[in-house]
């Protein structure tokens, strides 16, 4: 996405726009999330994070460190208490729920630990599901789903039910579903959490391939093996982000 930029854009952004430099895919500006309570829980302290187009970023941290909170904020499943989150340069914190939903469907691809495939629908149907809500023209849906499945090397499993697939294959179906609507960023939450070493490697190899094709990836994990595959690593602990060298 390029011109024009919305209101909260700064002079810096305007300058970038003039230069026709694409904005970062993900940009957090002093984003914090506080859960009300006594005392309030600071799940995420005011943090900045930029993910440029084509980045492969991992976010690591132990349980309870704020990983899930960050995931939900990045995935537009939750709103920050303060700060601004720009997705492809578009501010989202104050955006309407309808707009956020549209962005979520069109600009973000999710991959979950639990796969979240519909058990009674074929592999192809599961991938097509993502095209329903993201506004992919009907005529293109099938071709794009087939292409996405080819890309995750599952072109021969179209009519299979997810329950008959291995864990690695299931996660690859989930990846195909995540990329079918051409999102700006793939958001993976513990993508290998339910997989054995072999299947994990399969999925991580796929991530490498996708990254090689230019896809922006953000992988949230507690597993160092997974995070080591990323080019940039961010640690989250006690709700604070630190970029690792």
């Amino acid at each position, binding site marked *: *996405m390029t011109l*024009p*930029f*919305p209101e909260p854009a700064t002079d810096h952004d305007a300058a970038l726009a003039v230069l026709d430099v*694409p904005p970062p895919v993900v940009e957090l500006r002093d984003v914090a999330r506080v859960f009300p309570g006594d005392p309030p829980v600071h799940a995420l302290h005011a943090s900045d994070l930029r993910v440029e*187009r*084509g980045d492969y970023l991992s976010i690591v941290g132990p349980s309870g460190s704020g990983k899930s909170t960050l995931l939900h904020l990045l*995935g537009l*499943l*939750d709103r920050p208490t303060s700060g601004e989150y720009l997705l*492809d340069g*578009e501010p989202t914190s104050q955006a309407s*729920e*309808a*707009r956020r*939903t*549209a962005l*979520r*469907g*069109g*600009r973000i691809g*999710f991959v*979950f630990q*639990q*796969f*979240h*495939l*519909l*058990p*009674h*629908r074929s592999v192809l*149907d599961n991938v097509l*599901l*993502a095209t*329903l*809500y*993201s*506004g*992919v*023209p*009907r005529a293109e*849906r099938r*071709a*794009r789903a087939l*292409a*996405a499945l080819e890309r995750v090397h599952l072109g021969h499993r179209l009519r299979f039910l997810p329950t008959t697939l291995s864990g690695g294959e299931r996660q690859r179906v989930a990846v195909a*579903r995540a*990329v*079918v*609507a*051409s*999102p*700006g960023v*793939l958001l993976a*939450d513990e993508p290998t959490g339910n997989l054995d070493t072999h299947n994990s490697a399969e999925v991580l190899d796929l991530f490498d391939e*996708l990254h090689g*094709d*230019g*896809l*922006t990836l953000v992988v949230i994990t507690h597993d160092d093996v997974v995070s080591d595959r990323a080019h940039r690593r961010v640690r989250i602990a006690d709700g604070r982000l630190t970029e690792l060298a």
Partner: protein
Amino acid sequence: MSAPATAPEAPVTATPPDGRVTRRADRFGLRDLASEAAAGIDARPGRLFLTILGTVLGIASVVVTIGLAQTAAGQIARRFDAVAATQAMASPSTTRGADGNARATAPLPWDADVRAERLAGVEAAGLVAAVDVGGVAVTAVPVNDPSAPATTSATVLAASGDLLDAVRGEVVTGRFFDSGHDARADRVVVLGSRAAERLGVSRVDRQPSVFIGDRSYTVIGVVDGMQRRTDLRDAVVLPLGTARADFGLPAPEELHLRIAVGAGPVVGEQVPVALSPNSPETVSMQVPGGGGGVRDDVQADISTIFLALGGVALLIGGLGIANVTLLSVMERVGEIGLRRALGARRRDIAAQFMLESATVGLLGGMVGAALGVAAVVVVSAAQSWTPILHLGVVLASAAGGGVIGLLAGIYPAVKAASVEPIAALRGGV
């Protein structure tokens, strides 16, 4: 499409960055909604069967109820029709006089029966009038016994020759009098069956006599039946002419008509004119309605009771759908969360569950309506009845199932729409 993930011109980004949603090409249209709902229903055929069972039974019982009520009412009406729909009566209009008593405004003509019989739709017409015999007893043997206890005297009526036919009477023995007896004022009588019993007359071949006061009348027949004038069974019936001659009968009182089925309204209009061309309003008519009021009444009675039962069954059916849909929402929390994460709005989720529920209800309604029709046909066949069931009732019942499903789906749909994707995605599918 070598690298779809990097294509920045994904369709949704056609939306201007000011946040205003403009053209959203092909985003979850009706076809998508329908196919998703169908897939949701299709996923668990076994459960679908159990879900629609309540609605099937409810709709079937409603259809059976209405169908059997209509069928039975048809049977009842047919039986009633045989008597009620073919009987009519004309009598002089009455007006309240100065003394407060009702009195006839004008008498019926003596030849009213002949005039009426000329009308199309009138199959038989007979005049009847009560005869004032001046308090004398009607006896088989004139005995002057001052010590005898007072007995109730049989009613004395006068009738024209065709009355028996008009009121569906039948001759038990002997014969009814005819216009000849009438014209000659012969002293003959016909006895109603009970009057004959009381007077001890059982056969007429020996020409028994009854005495009205001191006058002797030859009994020429005994009659029975007469469902519309059962008082005739207790009566001693004279020819009109005889009653005029012997008792000074002033005028006939009632004209009984046997009419063709459905002729009621026409006869009711024409008979007064035929009897009193100058002032037809002086003749008051009792005719059966054209549409069969009896049928409607009976139908209403039967239907109310059974429809209440059907309503209860439907309520249970609706609750069943609501229950299973709610259960399904609980089970599919993960799916709902996933759809929300994929960009489904709350209303998309709600619409899907509403449609699933309505479809299940419609399915139940159609199966139930079909079963109901089959049951009505089978019962009717077993009873040798003609099955009567309005097609509209069947279609409305099937559609009613859909409405019930829709109503039953409201609460589960609201629940589904309120699922938070965050919570949902934690659990597995």
